[in-house]
Structure formats: C-alpha cells, structure tokens
C-alpha cells in the first residue's frame, strides 16, 4: 500500500479543514474558559451571593428587595440567583460540601433540623449581639422562632410565616339560612352538610367543607406532634383528630369525594382555586389567597375565619410553615449575609422591612412590624388578612416538629391520614403504624450514631 502523492492537494485541504475545526473549537473553548464575573451593579463592593427559589412574579418582588438593600449601603452587594425549587437543596448541599456555598439562602423546605445537625448551617443567634437576640426572643411571634430553631439555636430567620384559616362564601351560607360562620367545628360540619350539593347520580357538585391535613387538625383538637420538647404521636387527642378526618370523608364516600376532587382544576395558579369557581363553600388556605383574590377575583364576596375548635379543642390552632433565611457553613461573607437577613426580616428596623412584607403578602416576624404604619395600611387595604394576623400570636399554631427526620415524619403523617381516610385501616391502626415507623427510624438513627 502506498501513500498516493497525486492526492496531496486534496489531503492538504482535508488537513486544513480539520485544523480549522480544531481552531474553531479552541476559540470556542477559550471563550467559555475565561471565567467571567457574575453580573454586578456595584463591582467595587463585597459580593454577597444569595440563592432563593422564587420565580415568575415572585422573583420580581425578591429582586426589588435586593435592589433596596444594595441601594441602602455602600459595603455589600447582594447578587441574587433563582434556583429551580425542585433541585435547590441538591445544589445547595453540593456547594456546601464542595466548599463553595452561597452566603445566604432563602428556604421553605423542611431542612433546618437535618442540616443543622449535620453542621451545615451557621447558628444565627451567635451572630447577634446578646441584647439583639434577647429582644428577638421577646418580640417575635412564637411560631416564627419555632420554625427557625433547632436544639436551642436559631438557624433560620423567618421572613414570612404561613398560617391557614377558613375562606367562606357568605352568599352560600345565606342561601341555607346560616346567619354567621359557626364558632365550633361541630357546627361547621353540620353547616357543611347543608352546603354540599349533589347531582341526580349523587355525585358531589359543590363541597360545603371537607377537612384535610392531620398536621392541621391535631393541634385544633388540642394535640400535636411535638409536646414538651419531644415527639407525641399516638395520643388520644391526635387519635380524635384522625378519626374526625376519616369520618368526615367517609360520610360522603371516599370514592365520591375523590371523584369530586379529581374533577377540580387545581393547576396551582391563583385563578384556578376551586373556591373562586364556587366548588367549595368553605375552604382552608393560607393568607396569600387574600391578595390573590383581590387581584384575580376582585368581585368575589368572601370572608375569612379561623378554623373553629371542636369541643375540648384549642382555638386559633393549626399548622404553620414559612420562608426563612439561612447562612451555610463555609459562607465567605457571613457578616454581609447577616446584614441582608436583618435588612429583610426587620430585626433592626421594623418600619423599613414592613414594606417588604406587604410586597409579598407575607406575615411578619414580629408584632413590631405588624404595628408599623405601612403594614397597618396593608391590613386596611385587605381587611380579611386580619384573621391570619390574629392567629399569629397563638401558641396553638404548630410547625413540623424540629426533628432531623422531618421529611420522613411528614411523609408518615400523610400516610397515616391517607390510610385512615381510605379506610384501609382504622385511625387507631394508622396512628399506631405512624408511631412504630417513627420509633424504627429513631432506633435506626441511634444504631448509626446519628
């Protein structure tokens, strides 16, 4: 075999083409290789990298708060990054473990106990002056501190609390002759029966009221999952709550309720809430619906009220969660991060921060913020918001228990509720299984020295 000299020109051309490709690739690689700085408005300042999970119209609110912070001073610049919610925890954990975490992150997932126990978070109380910490403990709403605390330290400072109450349609109540919203859960359930509508085939066309959420109703029945600093799952009050949830659904038939719920358009957008279309007469939801209703259904007549307590239960009770700010271990600008957290949460200046809370329709960290003029103006604008504010001071509002296996616990609580309402076991069996599962997890963690 010989190398054909006559095709030299063709080969040269091919070689040149190949070289040209390599050069193009090298140029492209060089272009991407040069690390370019993050987009900065104030490049002369110290950057504080802030990750959050808001997107769409919420991101605009966050960007506004960041802009306000950056405009308020000349030392730090907060550089915000919106991370897809479903993968934010993975990105965060990788960045912390890899040694290059953000300086501050806004969270709402159940992460504080697990991450704090793994040593991934900076206790925020250690960054505060003793007087500042004492003042926060004295003034903050109880639930705000509960959400952010683990093992005696504050790891997350709340910038928005969520509490849940009843939204109801007065014209539906008037149509069945009800003069006022019931003041007991028993009364509400009796009213719900009158409000619920069926078609000829006995399919539900309008649901008067359907309670759901074991974590919501356990505190309402005077129970809860965390009492006196420890888990309390299988208690008579919790059992009563689960039995109530089970019986409420089975009264209409589990399948019938499921069919009704499946027919609802619950795409997640404000306008798709079935309460707006009148498919529920009474619905339990968070405070953010107040502003959404004003925006997307301004003509809708509705009112809000706390979920009424049953006999022997507790008033102004229920479940709560919220948004909170954390600082990861390994953050380069801990001081800058804390500065930003203070700025947003209003620890040092309630008047200024009150405006931010109104932008997002968030419930504030403390009554000091609630009492400010901007926040009071907001409440006047949205009077139904007051129901939620009144609930904030209640000690009966409970977040997920501060245990390092919150995700598993929540999953098992939901499983217990589903088992009970489906009728696949009695409420007692469901709650016993819940207790056994959690005991097994605690034993497993002990075995592994966690």
């Amino acid at each position, binding site marked *: *075999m*010989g*190398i054909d000299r006559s095709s030299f020109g063709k*080969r040269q051309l091919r070689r040149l083409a*190949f070289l040209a*490709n390599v050069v193009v*690739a090298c140029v*492209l*690689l060089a272009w*991407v*290789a*040069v*690390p*370019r700085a*993050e*987009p900065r408005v104030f490049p002369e300042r110290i950057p504080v*990298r802030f990750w959050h*999970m808001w*997107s*769409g119209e919420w*991101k605009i609110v966050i960007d506004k708060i960041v802009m306000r912070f950056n405009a308020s001073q000349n030392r730090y610049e907060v550089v915000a*990054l*919106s*991370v*897809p*919610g*479903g*993968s934010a925890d*993975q*990105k965060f954990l*990788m*960045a912390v*473990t*890899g*040694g*290059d975490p953000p300086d501050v992150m806004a969270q709402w997932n159940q992460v504080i106990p697990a991450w704090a126990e793994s040593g991934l978070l900076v206790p925020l109380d250690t960054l505060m002056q003793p007087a500042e910490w004492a003042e926060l403990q004295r003034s903050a709403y109880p639930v705000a501190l509960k959400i952010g605390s683990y093992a005696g330290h504050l790891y997350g400072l709340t910038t928005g609390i969520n509490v849940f109450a009843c939204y109801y349609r007065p014209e539906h109540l008037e149509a069945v002759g009800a003069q006022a919203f019931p003041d007991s859960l028993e009364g509400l359930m009796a009213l719900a029966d009158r409000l619920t509508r069926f078609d000829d085939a006995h399919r539900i066309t309008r649901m008067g009221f359907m309670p759901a959420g074991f974590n919501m109703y356990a505190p309402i029945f005077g129970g809860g999952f965390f009492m006196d600093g420890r888990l309390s799952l299988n208690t008579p009050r919790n059992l009563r709550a689960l039995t109530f949830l089970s019986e409420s659904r089975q009264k209409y038939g589990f399948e019938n309720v499921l*069919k009704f719920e*499946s*027919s609802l*358009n619950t*795409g*997640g*957008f404000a306008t*798709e809430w079935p309460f707006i279309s009148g498919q529920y007469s009474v619905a339990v939801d968070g405070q953010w619906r107040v502003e959404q209703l004003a925006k997307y259904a301004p003509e809708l007549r509705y009112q809000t009220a706390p979920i009424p307590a049953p006999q022997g239960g507790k008033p102004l009770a229920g479940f709560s969660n919220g948004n909170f700010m954390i600082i990861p271990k390994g953050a380069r600008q801990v001081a800058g991060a804390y500065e930003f957290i203070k700025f947003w949460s209003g620890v040092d200046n309630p008047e200024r921060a009150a405006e931010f809370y109104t932008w997002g329709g968030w419930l504030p960290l403390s009554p000091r913020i609630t009492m400010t003029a901007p926040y009071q103006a907001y409440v006047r604008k949205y009077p139904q918001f007051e129901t939620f504010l009144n609930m904030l001071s209640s000690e009966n509002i409970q977040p997920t228990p501060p245990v390092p296996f919150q995700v598993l616990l929540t999953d098992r609580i939901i499983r217990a509720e589903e088992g009970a309402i489906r009728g696949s076991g009695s409420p007692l069996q469901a709650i016993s299984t819940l207790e056994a599962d959690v005991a097994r997890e605690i034993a497993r963690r002990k075995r592994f020295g966690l």
Partner: protein
Amino acid sequence: MTPHSSSQPGALGRAGLHLVLLLLAIPYVLPLIWMLSTALKEDSQIFPREGSAQSALALSNLIPNPLAWHNFPDAMATVPFVTYLRNTLLLCFINVLGAVLSSAVVAYGFARLRFRGREFLFMLMIATMALPGQVTMIPTFALYSKLGWYGTFLPLTVPAFFGVPFFVFLMRQFFLTLPLELSEAARIEGATEWQILWRIVLPLSKPVLATCALFQFLGTWNDFFGPLLYINDPEKYTLAYGLQQFMSSYGGKWGQLMAASTLFILPIIVLFFAAQKTFIQGIATTGSKA
C-alpha cells in the same frame, strides 16, 4: 419454493409483523402524542369539566380543537429560549468534538498499540464506568471549585477532552474489527501511528464515530444536573435547566410547558431520524470482533 423464499415472510406476513410492531410502539409514542396534543390546546381543553364531552377517555380528545399555536411563541417569550439554545448548542458542539476525538485516540492505543499493562489499564478504565456519578460528584466539584472553574462552562466541557470510557470501549471494539494489514501496510510506507489513525482508521470508522457523537450530543443536550451544579448565571443556562426553571415558574401553564418541551425534544427527534442508519450501524458493528 426455494430455501430463500421460505425464510422470507410474504406480503401478508410482513403486514402482520408491521401491525404487531405498530401496536408495540403505541405505549412509547403515546406520551409524545399527548405532549404535542397538549402543546396545541387551550387550558380549557386540557382541564375540561367533568361530565363534558372533552373529559371522556377518547382518542378524539387528543386532537386539539381549536389549535392553540400561540402556546409556542408564548413559551418562547416566557423564557429566553434563544439564549438557552445558544448555550446548549455551544456545549454540545464542544463536547461532541472533545469526546469523540479524545476517545478515538485512547481507543486506538488500546486496540492497535502493544505496551505493558495495556489490558490492565483498559480494565481499569472500564471499571470507572461502574462508579456511580454520586461518588465522584463531590471530589470533582471541589476540584473544579479550587481551579476557579465554578460558575463557568469549563466543568461542563473540559472533561470531555479526556476521553469518555464508554466511547473508548465502543471505539476499541470497532477498531479491533478493522484488518491489521491496513495498518501494517501504512507502517511499511513510513506512516506514523498518528497518520494511521487519522488517514486509515478514522475514515473507516465513521459509523462508530457518528454513534459516539450522537450519544454525546444527547447526553449534553439532556444534561440538567451539570448546569444545575456549576452554572450560577441565568445567561449561561442551558435548555434542560431552563425547562426546569420554566416548570418552577409556570408549572400550571400546561400548554406552554408542553410547547416548550416539544421545542426541547424536536432537535433530538430530527437528529435521530437523520442519523438513525449510521447510528444503528455503529451500534451493530461494535459488539463483535470480525
């Protein structure tokens, strides 16, 4: 009847075979049809009221009426689709080039050069394929971070230039099928190993090169986790990452979401149909030694 004709199915047999294949294909095609159908529907058609004709489980309800073409421009206006596409194509181009070239060089060494420890090194390289990504994720992240590559495209491109074990394996198997005499003859004529690789082996290996290029393209195109970990600037987001962002932001807008998903997979489908002959040839010829 000749032995040849007896081994070939008749027209009826072929029709039957195609019918069975078509039936088997339905479960795989249905999600794609549903995606396209949803991309062309209004929300009211996607979520019809229970009891209405549109809520019935009927094939006719897969056909949108009216056609909501606006979902496509709306989706493209909602996210910077062109920016994401540019970034994705850039990464695909660099990764395909890097992975195919570097893997070919390594595979040539394993297939055609004799040196001490060759088999051991080959087995070692193959063994790295068994390592789950999660095991190497943290050390590589820390390494790239220390190198100052965090936040750039470098962690997403440079590794491709160091050979991809699976491609090395495929190419080595293919190179082993090429007659050794070709290389021997070139050597006698004074060709170097580089010249043999570039002028003889690679031109004869187009199917396997195309297969590896396609695999790499698909891998880079669909990669969500890499950009998630290393990219911190929305200007550098890729389509897979952008699509996830779209789901977070506008998850309830199913029409737009499916329109964006259709746009996302369209190039892959076109590419596969365009290159399917070469692709299948490449796969078929790497499995056995001639």
